[in-house]
């Protein structure tokens, strides 16, 4: 039953005032709300799998079907070079991180507006919302990964110690989605047409990433430097190297990593700056 509050002398004191000056990230507070982060992620996943009757099979079929289409068009008809790897595995290995990224970006970009009722009725660190939107894609990813294992067995691809690098590239993909998602979600609160632009951004981004083709096609020199500005180029190159033994990461990867950090820092800054108006405007 109800117990009286404990000694009033030890009660925590909170003060709210208009914020000014430099923003602090306050990641510690996000950490304090990790259970909420967990539950929101869990809600997204559970609802998605409960709603679609195909649920799990959809998560598996989507990259698989895309791979089949790619293999027919780019592998068989256009005969794109695939670094000496069977084209189906070659493209599937790229589709996995790509769909992880694209899904996370789409969900994160609309996450604040989609959770407007939460923002206006309870307090929690707002970063929790895009964080959970990004994390929710990991289940689909894991399922897709099982299929990949099957494919690799079938095509008899040998795993090497480089596979240990994989978590790093997954993290890089998630951080990229988060960084751009922070920008888009905060912008979308102010300008509602942003969400209509997101599918287009994702589509354009896919062509700019070596999903269907090999990053080796991009000539070295300044072209390659520009190409590396797309962190997904580094992620996919990394995936192919780690799992399939394709060309190892080069300067492209370095540029990608730097880019992710720039994007993330600016995304966090913009998000935190707009954060205090979310509840009033959304």
């Amino acid at each position, binding site marked *: 039953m109800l117990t009286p509050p404990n000694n009033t002398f030890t009660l925590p004191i909170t003060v709210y005032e208009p914020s000014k000056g430099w923003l602090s990230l306050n990641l510690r507070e996000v950490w304090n709300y990790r259970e909420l982060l967990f539950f929101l992620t869990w809600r997204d996943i559970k609802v998605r799998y409960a*709603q679609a009757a195909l649920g799990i099979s959809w998560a598996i079929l989507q990259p698989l079907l895309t791979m089949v289409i790619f293999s027919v068009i780019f592998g068989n008809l256009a005969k794109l070079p695939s670094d000496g790897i069977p084209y189906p595995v070659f493209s599937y290995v790229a589709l996995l991180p790509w769909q992880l990224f694209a899904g996370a970006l789409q969900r994160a970009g609309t996450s604040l507006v989609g959770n407007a009722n939460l923002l206006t009725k309870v307090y929690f660190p707002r970063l929790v919302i895009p964080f959970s939107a990004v994390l929710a894609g990991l289940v689909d990813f894991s399922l897709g990964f099982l299929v990949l294992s099957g494919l690799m067995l079938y095509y008899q691809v040998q795993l090497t110690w480089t596979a240990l690098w994989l978590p790093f590239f997954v993290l890089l993909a998630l951080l990229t989605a988060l960084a751009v998602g922070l920008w888009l979600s905060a912008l979308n609160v102010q*300008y509602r047409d942003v969400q209509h632009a997101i599918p287009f951004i994702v589509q354009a981004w896919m062509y700019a990433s070596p999903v269907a083709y090999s990053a080796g096609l991009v000539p070295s020199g300044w072209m390659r430097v520009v190409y590396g500005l797309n962190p997904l180029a580094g992620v996919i190159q990394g995936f192919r190297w780690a799992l399939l033994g394709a060309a190892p990461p080069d300067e492209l990867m370095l540029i990608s990593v730097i880019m992710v950090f720039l994007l993330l820092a600016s995304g966090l800054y913009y998000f935190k700056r707009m954060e205090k108006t979310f509840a009033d405007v959304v």
Partner: protein
Amino acid sequence: MMSNVAIKVENLSKVYTIGARREQYPTLRGALTSGFKQFMKLQAFRQIGNNSLKALDDVSFEVKHGDVLGIIGRNGAGKSTLLKLLSHITEPSQGRISLYGRVGSLLEVGTGFHPELTGRDNIYLNGAILGMRRAEIAKKFDEIVDFAEIDKLLDTPVKHYSSGMYVRLAFAVAAHMEPEILLIDEVLAVGDAEFQKKCLGKMGDVAQSGRTVLFVSHNMAAIERICNSAMILNKGKIVEVGNSVDQIIRSYLSNSISSEKPSWDNTGITFDSPYFSPIQLYLSDEQGNIKQSPIKNDDDDVWIRLIGNIERLDPALTIGFAIYAENHEMLFWSYQTDQAESLWPVLKIGTNELKCRLQPHLLNEGTYYVKLVGGLHNRAWIFAPSGNTPSFSFIVSGGLSNSPLWFSRRPGLLAPVLHWSLVTKN
């Protein structure tokens, strides 16, 4: 000395930019095409521009530990804004709030409930959203289920719940938070009388246990029952605050007898419902002209007219109004679907204008509130008869009866003139 204070609010103001919300969202395309310079100007304009609204204006007060403060005021007085500031949902424009203790807030029943998830899942989810730890929820789980009376449906998605069960569950979770300071906004207005009694009981317990409670309500009876102090807000300022609760309520009620137009007009608010979005709600004559308040009791040409826009037709739409007495006790509500199905008005996509006749000799003399209510039958509320749905008030005065013996107000909420006759036996 400080230890006695639970909430201290100093010179608190909150300024909203009107139009930043609801009316029309600005587009990024618009912002970009109108040029970067324009854009910067717009931003500057937005911060200081004159289309801003002071929802709270230099408010200061203190609440002591164990106090239960009732906050009353008309719609738009700033009550919700005050609770939102205290619960850190939005930031003050000026001033300072100091809170001594953990704060829990219940500004809406069932925030974050997901219709596809089961009752069990929603308890955990909602608990986490309200800031409870997982272990804490697990400990209280049985109590919550008990309170909500849903043990049989615990593993059914809540979309299959009746609206009564839904609110009960939602309130149950929130009622089992144990913060030192609890902020509650108009949650009692939803649900049936039985439920309200239960909630009041629970809130009484909370108050008894020495917690500090801030309670916004239109329900004066509830305020009188559980609060030991009260505050009237009007246009963002404190009008009255103190410990003589019933005197404050009386002063509020006598001031709120309004000479305003008996109508509610949509001034650019969008309601997030494709099923019905109200444009106007008012008291009219049969032709649709606005009625002057006060009206006479025997006026037989009084209609309630409801104009609204429908984007998506749903056969389960029930839309209507509720009538409340001066003390905000509900008298009845009425939907367009109250008669036999063949008599229902046929709604269409686009603007619909509904009218409903209010019979003469029904209401007593006094002030009455008409409030929009509606929803999708057995599925969801669109306009729950709670806090902030469109409403207006009107006054009934005179015309009680043709009887020479009944010309002044009698006690009671209704004043029907009933038919009497002598039973003759042969």
